Structures are given as structure tokens and as C-alpha cells.
């Protein structure tokens, strides 16, 4: 059996959770003080997800970088792979908020989109 220590992010209380896992399945969550805490502990140990945000160079833009994000959460384990892909990207101005910068980033099925509009210089 595996035990994992987590801090709940549901509220400033930050309950210290102990999640017990058996073969990747959650057996118990301890230390939570509300349902949100229980659910967070379970999800964080089975399928943790994150949104990745960064920025990408823009050629000929009025500013040098355009901010980007994954259009939805991606698996936490894919963050670094996702960053590697972001580091290869460059775009040409103009870029509009919502434009897809990289489709299906790191095989997650999620697109990387611009979060800012950058006009041409």
C-alpha cells in the first residue's frame, strides 16, 4: 500500500491529507474536513490535472512575446513535455486571443491557445 501526503487547496485551511492507494486505486483519504477535501485528495492521487501557461515569441509583433495557455487542464505528468513543445514554438504577428498556437500539445488532445492579441509591428 502507498500513502501520499497532500495539502488540500480547497480553502485557506489547507488541510493535510493522507491518501492511501492500493495498485493505483484510492482506498482512503484522511485528514480532510469537508467533502471538497476528500474529493481533491482522491483526484489529486488518481488523475491530477493542471493548466499550463507560458509565452511564445512573436515575429514582427508590437511586443516580443504572446502569452499562451493550454485550452483545458492537462495531466500533471505532461507538464514538462508540454513545456518542451512550447519552447519550440514561434508565431508571426498578428496573433489573436484564442488563436491555436499548437494543436494537440504533447499528445494530450488539448490545444495551446493565445491568451493575448498581439498586433503587427
Amino acid at each position, binding site marked *: 500500500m502507498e500513502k501520499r501526503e497532500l495539502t488540500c487547496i480547497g480553502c485557506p485551511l*489547507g488541510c493535510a491529507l493522507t491518501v492511501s492507494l492500493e495498485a493505483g486505486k484510492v482506498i482512503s483519504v484522511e485528514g480532510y474536513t469537508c467533502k471538497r477535501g476528500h474529493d481533491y485528495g482522491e483526484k489529486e492521487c488518481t488523475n491530477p490535472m493542471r493548466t499550463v*501557461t507560458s509565452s511564445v515569441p512573436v515575429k514582427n509583433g508590437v511586443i516580443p512575446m504572446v*502569452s499562451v495557455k493550454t485550452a483545458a487542464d492537462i495531466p500533471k505528468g505532461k507538464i514538462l513535455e508540454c513545456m518542451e513543445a512550447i519552447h519550440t514554438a514561434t508565431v508571426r504577428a498578428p496573433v489573436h486571443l484564442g488563436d491555436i498556437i499548437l494543436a494537440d500539445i504533447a499528445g494530450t488532445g488539448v490545444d495551446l491557445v493565445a*491568451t*493575448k492579441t498581439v498586433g503587427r509591428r
Partner: protein
Amino acid sequence: MAEGRKSMETALAIIGGGPAGLAAALAAREAGVEDILILERDSVLGGILNQCIHNGFGLHTFKEELTGPEYAYRFIKRVEEAGIPCLTDTMVVDLEEEEGEKYITAMNRKDGILTIRTKAIILAMGCRERPRGALNIPGFRPAGVYSAGTAQRLVNIEGKMPGRDVVILGSGDIGLIMARRMTLEGAKVHTVAEIMPYSGGLKRNIVQCLDDFGIPLKLSTTVVKIHGKERVEGVTLAKVDERMKPIPGTEEYIPCDTLLLSVGLLPENELTEELGAKMSPVTRGPLVNESMETSLSGVFACGNVLHVHDLVDFVSQEAALAGKAAAEWLKENGNNVTEADLVLEQAEKQETAAGRMQAEKTAITVEPGAHVRYTVPSKIRPDKAGEETLIRFRVDNVLKDHYLCVSYNGELISRKKKRILAPGEMEQVVIRHSDFEKYPELSRITVHIEAE
């Protein structure tokens, strides 16, 4: 006004085109103010949100998680659609009031020195980061000591990395966000040191910016020396005692090339003070009433210039209230001035001034009690208050299972158990308008936290 200057007139000038200024402008327009001018020192609207490219903004306002630029864009778009004029790249250098008229001196490339005559002003200049000097951190003064926000601008806007081996002092949200940001961009963040025994940042940021990447958070720890004559070569950390004095023998040297500081935000109120508004020594912002109006009639304040907020959603809310109140004020104080009106207006002005004094007299004082550092507003005029008046405040310590109490004239009125209260989070209580009728003698509202 002096010759050689260009001049403009407006009914409502908003100083600052960040989230506060934008929301205030929109609310004022919705409330019927035609003549609005936003003055922004940067080349684009949106303020600091433009460099806050992480997500987590707007959950309260839009019920979805947006990044900073996306949140800003929603307001910028509406301001553009509403056709509210903005002067960007324009720095306000002086505010003054003369015979009831307000004059703004601003400068930019195109207009040179600009004098703007306005009826009302909304102050929305935001805040700045506390610099190293304010902490008196001993040591050399090499390159590589940055405030977290400066580093954020370099990485996110310029695409440049200030360094590779990083120590962060202060666990405010910007510091935490930058720990993750620098890590994702390939830097090694060795540690985040926090002088307090708790972090001022959101739990979510501690987990997702530090824990996710195995970055240690050292509480009750500070930087006691900066090493390196030209570029940072390392820092010495030490534990601090309960009086926040470094404990000898606990020093630890960490080699690094960059020290980021996230040690607090200070409202930027130099203009406010020059204008003569009464200030709060706690928030370092002006004192305001229920309408976000400062001690100066027709001068309103909102957002981080008033008090440093935790969430931008609350900035937008507060700014909308200021915008609406400014619109009301303009209605009462004559929106448009013509020569013929002047005599009449003078008489009216005296009347409003008398009315104002009366209102000030009957205003209810709002004051912080035990464990509450300040309240915004600090005065409520019942006849001007809406259905609900929000009192925002911050507590002075991490308090578990305490009671949030409100007293009227010293008499306990409400008491609500809170599982957790933390200095990093803004708290609020609501005062209902019906209470003003229910308690006609009410002159003092106290917000306080009790253990039992």
C-alpha cells in the same frame, strides 16, 4: 493655467487603466456619465494583468478561470465598445484642486504637458512592490536582485531569463507564481524563504507552484546577507525568532545567481497625498466612505491604490462601486458647467457643501477591532449606502476556528464561526441598509475577531 500647455476638459477622469480603472469607467458609463477620460501610463490598457499570464483570474466574476491578459481583455473590449476615450503612454504628474475645480497635469509624447480640468476623479493607480531597500537586507548591491514583478515582466513580456539559480524571498502570490514560472523555463529555484511563520500566498499556489516542483518553502526564515560584488553569487538565509530577528547559528549559505523579492505591495499614493486626501497608515491608501469617496469631495479611489487585494474580482467589484458613486456625485454636483450656470452653481455648491457636512456628521464610523487590521470603508453615510454595504478587511494572523463578529455601538450584533482566517486573504462582512433604520442611534460599527 500656464501657457504652452494643452488643455482638455472632462467630467470624470480615471487615473489608471488597469482592472480598477477599466471597471470604474464601465460602471460610470452605465450610470450615465458621457464624458469620461482614462489616463494610462503604459502603452496598453490592462495594467499588471498583462504580465500575469497564469490562470486563476475571474472565478467570481465570470465563473471560469482566465489568465490575466484574458481577464483584462474582457474589460478592455467593453471599454472600447463603449467608446470611452483613453490616453495611453500618459503619465499623470500632478493633481490639484482650485476653487472646487480639479486639475490634472499629465505628460506624453504627443501632447507634451497636458492640463485636464475635471469635475470628478477616480484614483486607480494600483500598487508597487516593496524594494530591497525597504527591508535593509545587508550585503553587497550586485546585479541579480529583482522584485518578483520585475522578473515576471522580463520572463513573460520580454522573454528573457534574469538568471538560472534562484532564491525567492517572500511567499506572496507573485513570488510563488514566479517560482513555478522560472522552474518551467528551466531555472532551478532552490528555495522560497518566508520571514513569517505562515505564507501570505494562496494554498493553491503553494501546492501548484511549489509542491508540484519540489521547491521547499522555509517559514520563519529570511535572507540575512547578499553575496557577490558584481552579480549575485549567493545568499545567506537564517531562521528568525518570534520578533523576526535572525537567530545566530541558523545561517545557511545558498549559492545562486538571482534573488527575487516578493515581500509586499505598497499602494502608489503619491498623487493622492499631494492632493491632500486623508490616508490610512495601515493600508497606505486613502480613507474612503461607502461610495469609495476619499476625504476630498468628488475624488474616489478603488483597487490596489486603496488597499492591496488578493483577487482581481474584488478589485473589479469595488471599482464598479466607485464608478457608480462617481456618476451619482456628478449628478448631484452638476455635470456640465457653462458660464451662465456659474453663479447658480456657486449657490448650489454651498448648499451641497452644507449637505455634505450634515452627511459627514451622521456618518457611521467603521473601525477595526481585535485581530482586524483595517476596514474599507471607514465611514458609511446611511443615506448614500446601497441595500448592502460590503466591509472589506484583513486579519493580522492565521486564526483557526475563530468568530467573525460585528458590533454596533459596542454591542455584539452578529457572530459567525470561521474555520480559518488568514492575513493573505481579504475578508468581508455585509451591512444591510435595513439595519440603519433598525438602529437609528448607530454611530460606530466594529468588525472584530474573537476566539470564543
